[in-house]
């Protein structure tokens, strides 16, 4: 398979996943900022949303203040922000077009229809209601694309590269939330927050669509250290770091088996997974949650680079 084709498949999947993540962040932020201050405290949730999206530098170069208007515009519709939802779909679609025959008809229909429908929102939503509908639509579009890939693609290297794109992006996204919000997720004895933080924890869970999952897994009320446990170590949660690496190792192994050769990408993925498997929350808190997450993001980037060098260049 051509490296360019694999590269396109990988980034196509990453951009679709990223668009969905941005929509979740914006949704969670909108919800939390709508609450009375007495419940959530005085924080700039919009600045935090920009940080979670990983584009504070570009944002503050273009805007002085992070507020609903500027952040919504920047993360959803800005053409200047290469990772806005609009640009994610734009890039995804042009990647898809360049490798049209490597996609199934269903995948192409999904991404092309999304791209066509995007024009409908081209003039920016006029109201919060309309914007909320837009965010729902983004998530549904991503689900449709993901589902059509899952249900229609041949299980060969094309599929595996596309899955790898999904999981590496997802791992990065979950880690970024943790990176920005780590101070809210400290263990019991260090925790000094009050009920104010409750809605923050719920917001975090919502941005990885895990609020209901939390209750099913732990069967108790929200505890910050358990939120961290769920997002980092719980295999059951599809957006946890652990689950992402389970899948990365699996898909990279399939490629290695098909090609008859292991490489740095497989070793890197396995090393990260082993680290996650051998970690317990107490130890992570002991070492420092922030340092742990920072290390993970760097590891994840290293894996991306290893995959690029080994297969996509």
């Amino acid at each position, binding site marked *: 398979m051509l490296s360019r084709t694999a590269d396109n498949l990988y980034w196509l999947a990453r951009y679709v996943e990223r668009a969905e993540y941005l929509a979740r962040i914006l949704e969670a932020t909108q919800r939390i900022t709508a609450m009375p201050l007495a419940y959530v405290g005085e924080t700039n949730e919009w600045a935090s949303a920009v940080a979670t999206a990983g584009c504070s530098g570009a944002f503050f170069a273009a805007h002085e203040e992070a507020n609903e208007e500027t952040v919504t515009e920047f993360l959803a519709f800005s053409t200047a922000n290469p990772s806005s939802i609009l640009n994610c779909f734009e890039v995804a679609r042009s990647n898809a077009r360049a490798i049209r025959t490597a996609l199934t008809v269903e995948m192409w229909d999904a991404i092309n229809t999304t791209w066509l429908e995007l024009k409908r929102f081209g003039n920016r939503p006029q109201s919060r209601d309309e914007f909320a509908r837009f965010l729902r639509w983004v998530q549904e579009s991503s689900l449709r694309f993901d589902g059509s890939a899952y249900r229609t693609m041949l299980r060969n290297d094309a599929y595996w590269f596309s899955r790898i794109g999904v999981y590496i992006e997802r791992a990065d996204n979950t880690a970024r939330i943790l990176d920005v919000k780590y101070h809210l997720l400290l263990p019991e004895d260090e925790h000094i927050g009050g009920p104010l933080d409750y809605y923050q924890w719920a917001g975090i869970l919502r941005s990885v669509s895990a609020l209901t999952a939390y209750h099913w897994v732990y069967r108790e009320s929200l505890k910050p250290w358990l939120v961290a446990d769920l997002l980092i170590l719980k295999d059951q949660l599809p957006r946890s770091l652990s689950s992402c690496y389970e899948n990365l190792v699996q898909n990279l192994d399939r490629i290695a088996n098909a090609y008859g050769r292991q490489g740095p990408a497989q070793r890197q993925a396995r090393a990260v997974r082993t680290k996650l498997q051998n970690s317990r929350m107490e130890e992570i808190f002991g070492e420092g949650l922030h340092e742990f997450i920072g290390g993970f993001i760097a590891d994840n980037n290293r894996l991306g680079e290893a995959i690029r060098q080994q297969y996509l*260049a």
Partner: protein
Amino acid sequence: MPVRLAFDEMKGADGTVRPAYSELADWLKDIRPDTLDHRRQEAELLFRRIGITFAVYGEADAQERLIPFDVIPRILSAGEWDTLRRGLEQRVRALNMFLRDIYTRREVLRAGIVPDDLVFQNPVFRPEMNGQKVPHDIYVHIAGIDIVRVDADTFYVLEDNARTPSGVSYMLENREIMLRLFPELFARHRIAPVENYPDELLATLTSLAPDSAPGDPTVVLLTPGVYNSAYYEHSFLADKLGVELVEGRDLFVKGGVVYMRTTQGPKRVDVIYRRVDDDFLDPLAFRPDSGLGVAGLMSAYQAGNVTLANAVGTGIADDKAIYSYMPEILKFYLGEEPILKNVPTWRCREPDALAYVLDHLEELVVKEVHGSGGYGMLIGPTADKAQIASFRTKLKLDPKGFIAQPTLALSTCPTCVDAGVAPRHVDLRPFVLTGRDRIRIVPGGLTRVALKAGSLVVNSSQGGGTKDTWVLDR
């Protein structure tokens, strides 16, 4: 139109239906106009869906990119096709012998058949190919020969396309759509299939691998990329052939061998079906500003480690200036009479011919020697005084730049138009594949139809459409 009454392929002047069309004529008589119209809409819908599938839909110009499709097929009898097939094989053999000669011994020039300056001063002549051995001595592997018909027995070659002829994807899709829309019509005829074209093409390309290639040669299709107007055809063909659709940046040359960048490391490439023009193939050999090509490709080609299909420099064989010499060229190499005639052509470079052309501009078609796509030509009978005057000036200034031909009454076929079914002018582009082992021609080709009443211009860029082409098996 002040042209002779055109030959209609379905009906004679007295209204009798020709045998090949008898079933179709009956069917057309019985079918209700709204049924035909309904099928027509259905066909358009299917094409649009293919458009969706193949990436043009959704563009601002999507509507323009759909070439109109006519649901009434064009039919050729087995006998007619047999003549055509033999004529095409003969023509393409001559084209290949001519190219080999031009780039090596040049006997055709020494014998005085073709004037030297037409070759050496021609921008499509490639000095880089002088003395260059090409794998198996074949230059034109895929040819699209444009044929027009003027009466029951006369088919003319209008143009030889020996560079990167396109349109074969329409031939294949037109048939697929017709099979879906009119299964009953197919049951009433015995129609030679065309669906094996991709297999024949792959067999041809594989047979062309250079001797240094491994037993199982790797074939790729080289496209200029998504912004090329024929990109859809490139991706369609690569998909049907089961070969990689590569862009210049996917390939590189090392040690005189071409490789593609794959997820499993560099992979050797042996045959390149290239849909990129000569000029853009290799920035080191041709246009240095080309971002579409592969640096060093020509050196690998010259080292005999890769086959380019078609070869570099084939433009000299399909040039309009050379065209008029084709009957003599064919006789020179094969010692045979051409089975397919040339359209009678006045070479304006010859003083007598020029004088005749200037006297008869109102009735002739004048073409620029280096023009294509129906542009840069004068159709005398439909031109106004100003256009004729302007061509008169151009001709006097640069007679070598033009040829002239009589305005042909191209044959007509029944065609769906707003007012019902009416005759429209057609041409035919069969595709001729030349491999190491043999020549392969899928029966039929792409029929183009001028949809405007009286129009003789079938080019899709100027309001032409396409039809499915049926060759009867008996």
